[in-house]
């Protein structure tokens, strides 16, 4: 007697297109697979998903609230919309709020021209920021021998926290405080240069999407970053567990 085989494939619609997904696939992955652009800043291949930046919010038919594409799995018969006036407005507003929280002066940043936030602002057509800058005091830590953290440029994507914990297994980075008071910290909010957990591996520098965690001695526009090592290392770590 044949037993019913549970299908691991889901069929659904994205922007009116019929697509099929594995049951463990997120909307964001599925969209990318099908050449549909959904913006994101916190998601990075090889690290866990946190839904911190909210830029990948999408609409799902039958749901009132918007859902983050990076954390929403494909279900049978689902209808997803990735591009609407409402989503464009929210995405632009999120970007503008990020710009208004800190110091994102591209012209004087080591990551100018190599920054994911800047690239996204251009791609999403953010020609100015409607919100006044919060003029917050955020500390720059230059105590580390090779690296700098400029919290004024941080967008709290938590990539540094995740790569340090999940790949390097050092867990030097964390986030302290809530809302506009949230800051990335090293150890127990002690100077990075005095950290006894930091291995100086530099992975946090590589994954930081902006000019917040950078190498010392870089001038404007010089801080190119590569994080193509990440998926491979993530697999090795997974195998070790």
């Amino acid at each position, binding site marked *: 007697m044949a037993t019913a085989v549970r299908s691991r494939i889901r069929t659904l619609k994205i922007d009116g297109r019929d697509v099929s997904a594995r049951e463990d696939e997120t909307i964001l992955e599925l969209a990318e697979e099908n050449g549909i652009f959904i913006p994101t800043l916190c998601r990075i291949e090889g690290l866990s998903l946190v839904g911190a930046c909210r830029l990948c919010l999408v609409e799902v038919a039958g749901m009132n609230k918007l859902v983050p594409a990076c954390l929403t799995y494909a279900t049978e018969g689902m209808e997803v919309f990735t591009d609407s006036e409402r989503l464009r407005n929210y995405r632009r507003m999120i970007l503008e709020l990020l710009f208004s929280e800190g110091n994102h*002066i591209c*012209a004087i940043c080591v990551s100018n021209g190599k920054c994911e936030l800047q*690239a996204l*602002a251009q791609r999403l057509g953010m020609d*100015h920021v409607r919100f006044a*800058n919060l003029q917050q005091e955020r500390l720059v830590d230059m105590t580390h021998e090779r690296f700098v953290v400029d919290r004024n440029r941080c967008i709290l994507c938590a990539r540094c926290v995740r790569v340090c914990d999940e790949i390097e297994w050092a867990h030097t980075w964390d986030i302290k405080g809530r809302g506009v008071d949230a800051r990335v910290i090293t150890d127990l909010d002690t100077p990075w240069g005095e950290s006894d957990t930091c291995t100086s591996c530099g992975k946090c520098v590589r994954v930081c999407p902006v000019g917040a965690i950078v190498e010392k001695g870089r001038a404007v526009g010089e801080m190119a970053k590569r994080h193509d090592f990440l998926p491979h290392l993530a697999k090795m770590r997974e195998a070790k567990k």
Partner: protein
Amino acid sequence: MSKAPSKVTVATVWLDGCSGCHMSLLDMDERLIEIAKAVDIVYSPLVDRKTKDYPEMVDVAIVEGAISSSEDIEKIHMIRAHSRILVALGDCAVAGNVPTMRNPYLVKDIESRAYIENVNVQPQVPDQVVPKLLPFVRPIHEVVPVDVFVQGCPPSADTIYFVLSELVAGRTPDLTQRTRPGA
């Protein structure tokens, strides 16, 4: 000297910026000649002004620089009132940019640094002629409405040429894929 009445009147203004945006405007090279056929520069730090004061009404005001002083506030209100289209040219005008780097500090500390600590002769904070600094440097659109935002530090000559060409043709330039902050 006959002046074609159909020419678009343009004013350019320099607030708290480095004049780099005006330099980039000049960097249009020979295209300036083409532009000059369609526009009449009626007020600008780049030319001998035909009028000492800002004209009653200009078609396009191109403003470089952020709002940093009491004088900037007065000027930008005056410009807005006497201009049909206001263009914020460059990152200082659009976002504050480099001049905003003084925002974390108190004005009195900045003045003290500039006029007292680093001065050998007659250290004193000026109380006349030099305009009063505002507590914070702000982008133009936080003070008056802006019609066109041209990002870049400075925006390239190509970008400025595109902006002017579009405005002369009566269109609103779409700059989203042509420039970016820090470009």
